[in-house]
């Protein structure tokens, strides 16, 4: 090669390496700047000691222990947050006469997994509220111990009416089986009844409600006094065996064997007070913007990246890290913001068509069509054009967005703290007729 061409080659290669090196370095830098959207609270840092509970009686026992210890984290791990969040079938849930509410309808995360962080946040908060409500009722009754756990009214569970209802529930939550358990608690000579509803997923169980229709318990009255004779009337050994047999039909042979083998071990672990299922919920890592423009820009960027968990981090959370525990307040705050983000998504995806509050019949759409319109993949195309402060309220900022050839104005209530800016509330999504 000519000497001068060698210089050209060297210059060329150096420039190529410079380009590739710089872009690789830039990507590394971005990666290191990335914030973990979740924090590990003291409760979440606890290692699990049991992977899953294979027997419904033991699952009810686990939940009763959690209530006894007032251990919200332990209790949350017993609820089917992941399962419901990943498999929720919103199409099955919406009836033609049901009102389509952006706030009460869960995001269709069973169809579009992108929505999972929102559904998980909402379900976690709902279960946390239920747990605390029931726990308060049990706390008033002193030191309770579990005397017995049985299938609640097994004869009724075998009837076709109950089976039909169970099947509908399975359809909504993609579970393989449903059952209800009665729990007999004792404090001295006084006995109390609690009822739990359980869902099975491929042979393992989760408690989906701390109430039971068959036991006659509700969230407001989750525990009631009962005598031993009355309790005996709720149970029936032969029918219970038939219920168990029916439930085993929903699981395969291997799982059935495993279930029988570990039943005693499961019970011993739960009774020892050391049983803890794997963590199945999260607490977001409060994240801040340097300015209102930066905050809303980052919020939008993570929507485009389809990272809803990171989006939730920009919602207002307590500044004090020490206060970030698994508490129903924190989880409720998280859930409120998740509902607002869901509202933001639904409004944009539906073109702010005012569907909120109308029935499917009034919308002229089937449940399938409603869910199809909520595809979050398309949120990648959202474009933020500008942020300006509201002239009437200095805490309100209006963001101009373009999505699917339409323009929108979105009102955000922002809060400034020492660490930076956060979104207090997403107030309104409105279509802007001006181009």
């Amino acid at each position, binding site marked *: *090669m*000519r000497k*001068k*061409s060698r*210089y*050209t*080659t060297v*210059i*060329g*290669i150096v*420039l*190529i*390496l*410079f*380009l*590739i090196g*710089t*872009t*690789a370095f*830039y*990507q590394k830098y*971005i990666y290191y700047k990335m914030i973990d959207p979740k924090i590990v609270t003291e409760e979440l840092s606890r290692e699990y000691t049991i992977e899953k509970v294979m027997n419904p009686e033991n699952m009810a026992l686990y939940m009763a222990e959690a209530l006894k210890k007032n251990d919200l984290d332990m209790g949350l791990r017993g609820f089917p947050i992941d399962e419901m969040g990943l498999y929720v079938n919103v199409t099955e849930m919406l009836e033609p006469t049901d009102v389509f509410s952006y706030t009460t309808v869960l995001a269709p995360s069973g169809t579009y997994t992108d929505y999972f962080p929102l559904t998980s946040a909402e379900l976690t908060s709902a279960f946390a509220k239920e747990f605390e409500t029931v726990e308060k009722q049990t706390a008033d009754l002193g030191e309770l111990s579990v005397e017995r756990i049985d299938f609640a009214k097994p004869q009724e569970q075998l009837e076709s009416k109950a089976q039909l209802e169970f099947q509908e529930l399975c359809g909504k939550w993609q579970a393989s089986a449903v059952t209800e358990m009665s729990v007999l608690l004792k404090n001295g000579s006084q006995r109390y009844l609690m009822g739990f509803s359980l869902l099975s997923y491929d042979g393992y169980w989760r408690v989906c409600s701390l109430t039971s229709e068959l036991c006659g318990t509700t969230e407001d009255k989750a525990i009631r006094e009962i005598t031993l004779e009355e309790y005996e009337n709720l149970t029936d050994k032969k029918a219970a065996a038939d219920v168990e047999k029916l439930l085993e039909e929903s699981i395969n042979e291997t799982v059935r064997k495993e279930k029988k083998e570990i039943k005693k071990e499961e019970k011993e672990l739960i009774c020892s007070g050391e049983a803890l299922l794997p963590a199945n919920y999260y607490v977001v890592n409060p994240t801040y913007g340097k300015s209102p*423009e930066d905050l809303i820009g980052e919020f939008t*960027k993570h929507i*485009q*990246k389809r990272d809803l968990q990171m989006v939730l981090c920009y919602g207002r959370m307590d500044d004090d890290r020490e206060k970030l525990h698994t508490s129903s307040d924190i989880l409720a705050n998280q859930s409120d913001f998740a509902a607002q983000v869901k509202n933001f998504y639904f409004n944009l995806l539906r073109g702010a068509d005012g569907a909120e509050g109308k029935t499917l019949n009034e919308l002229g759409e089937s449940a399938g069509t409603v869910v199809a319109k909520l595809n979050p993949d*398309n949120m*990648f*195309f959202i474009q933020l054009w500008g942020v300006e402060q509201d002239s009437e309220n200095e805490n309100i900022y209006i963001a101009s967005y373009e999505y*699917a*050839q339409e323009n929108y104005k979105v009102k955000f209530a922002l809060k400034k703290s020492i660490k930076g800016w956060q979104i207090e509330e997403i107030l309104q999504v409105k279509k802007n007729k001006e181009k």
Partner: protein
Amino acid sequence: MNKYKRINITKSQAENILEIIYLFVFAVFVGYFFLRTTTFIYELPEYFYYNVRTILLALLMARISLSERYDLKETFFLIALVITFLFAWRRNEYEELLNLLILMVGAKGISFRRILKVYLFTTGGLLLYTILASLTGITENLVYYQEGRRTRQSFGIIYPTDFSAHVFYSVISWLYLRSRKITYLEIGAVVGIAGFVYWFCDARLNTITLLLAAAVFLIYKLTLKKQKQESVLKELITTLFAISTTLCAIVMIGLTILYNPENKVMVFLDHVLNNRLWLGKKGIDVFGFSVWGRYIQLYGMGGSTNEPKYYFFMDCSYLFIILQYGLIIMGVFLCIWLFIGVRAKNEDDIPMLLVIGIIAVQCMVEHHMTDIAYNPFLLAALSYTGIAAKHSGNISYKIGMLTKKIQGKRTGVIG
């Protein structure tokens, strides 16, 4: 008595026959890709594309097995190229990489001028036919009406700027083939074509690159005598052209990374480049750079005059390649262009250097660098160019003789 007469063919004749068959199948393959950029409605036999590619691969293998022209360095280079492209293809799912690999390796041992002639004949011929077909109603001529701007026509291609890109590459191919024989009339025709593209397609950026091509080849023609003399200026200019692709890549990728909507200069540049910077920045923010690339669904405006509901397209080849094909393939492509440029510099193949420079600039605003339906110049990497391309009959002896001659004394440019 054996009634069948034995046909004796020499190895060289077998190579030539294989080369001709290869070029024919190559033309069919390129024609297929060209047709996909048109509005023609057609139906091909099932597996047509896969069958043609398989035949191309088989011919390539046959040519490799007959060839004695591979040395150790070449073999290692080819192995590295094949491994890199196949690794990338399996990870990012872009079949274009596999197709390009087959065509580049397949071009080895063939005169690039020959390949370019076949290419230009195929795509140029198809382009003319497509234009006529669109004007006579055989296929749809997509017409885009724009508020405050001139109407754009696509003349049977899926989008006006894609039509102008076909015109651009056809013109560049012609200019290269003509080289020192280019006339002032032909350069004037290029200016006329640029005017046509601007008037009927409103493809402003491609118009600029066509005018740039005309200007560059005009200067080339005017300075033909001076090019035989070695000078610092000539060295500087030829070096600049040889590394132009890398320089343009650095500029575009750098500008895109640094793009900030709050910076007025950036906003102005982005406006000039028709939002290529903010779209590219969005691509970087959302998808990020990766070693082997990733599949990115692009939503463009081609194929229909209806304004699309969703739009995301990277109209810059450098961003297109680095985000979709990955950092390694980007590096490989830049090395390939550098290799072509340095070889052209060594062979004093000034027209090739000019073409590299013009394509480098055009690729800042168009995404067709690796699209075989548009750009044939990547095939120059492993084929014979310059002096060797002119004497592509008995290559091995003549290359040795001619290379010695070049190193000894300058014999001038072979155009």
